[in-house]
């Protein structure tokens, strides 16, 4: 005999974030994106400044 619970398992909603959790998660994501953006700009700017010298790796 088939267990009715196995045949029709309960629907799991998963993790539902509260508005506060959603807000803080969004803020953190934006902060990480900004940090990565700064890093990209930094590498670009230093490459422009150093020119061909960017390949020189002084100790």
């Amino acid at each position, binding site marked *: 005999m088939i267990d009715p619970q196995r045949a029709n398992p309960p629907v799991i909603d998963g*993790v539902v*974030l*509260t508005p*506060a*959790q959603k807000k*803080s*998660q969004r*803020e*953190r994501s934006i*902060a990480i994106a900004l940090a990565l953006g700064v*890093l990209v700009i*930094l*590498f670009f*700017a*230093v490459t422009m*400044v150093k020119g061909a010298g960017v390949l020189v*790796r*002084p*100790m």
Partner: protein
Amino acid sequence: MSVVESHDIEFAAPRISEASVADYIALLKPRVMSLVIFTALVGLLLAPGHFHPVLAFTSILCIAVGAGASGALNMWYEDDIDAKMTRTANRPIPRGRVTKPEALTFGLVLSFFSVVTLGILVNWFAAGLLAFTIFFYVVIYTIWLKRWTAQNIVIGGAAGALPPVVAWAAAAGSLSVEPMLLFAIIFFWTPPHFWALALFRAGDYANAGVPMLPVTAGPDATRLQILLYTIVLVAVAFAPWPLGYFDAIYGVTSLALGGWMLLLAVRVYRQRTGSAALRASRNLFKFSILYLFALFAVLLLEVIVRGVIGMPA
């Protein structure tokens, strides 16, 4: 019949972080970071030769982030101490805003990026020094010395004294006497600064089990040590002028500020009981911050003046 018996399995609800960006910024110890940025800036501008502003900005940013990473790793390891002390109980981990693994990950990621970025974009000598600074603060000071010896902040003070050295190395690619002098000033400034704080927070430290000097040797022995270290500090901070490394404006300012610092240290030594003793240690603690800031500000001023009138460094 089923081979595997069914059991009710209870799943713990996953912990979803509500930590804000401000909580993560608090992990970086912004006030400590501001002093690191300032002292590093002085080290960087004092260094000989031309250093492109973009590279200078990159160096200061990497040093600042490295310092912040050290702060985060320090808070990761010291959450038990922080929770017991009134001064630190409001930090993100004791408040439950950030978990220990989150703080650890944050600190490690920032450490990695600050060191590697400094190495790739500026030079690997400075990056190595920055990595050593982070290692010294987290492993030598936080994990090893702090809970073990009353000399914790004396030896550990080296980590706080290294940022201007790292900055000099970033700009010059090598080291010389001047960054060592900057290092020595901060190194000898650290004990009187922290012991003045520890004198009026001794109960907090004792409660948390941190062997600060007032807890292990008593307040009177601490007062003597504060006085002795202040004498050494004033001499070390004054010496660069007669030795010809820094100019007269610095020498005179160092003498004036050092005289006042010494006077406050003598007051701490003599005022041993009641509210007068508390006031004396508080005054020394507050002035010590101004002392270091003003000393480095004068050096910064000298660099600017030299640049304006076109004098060689």
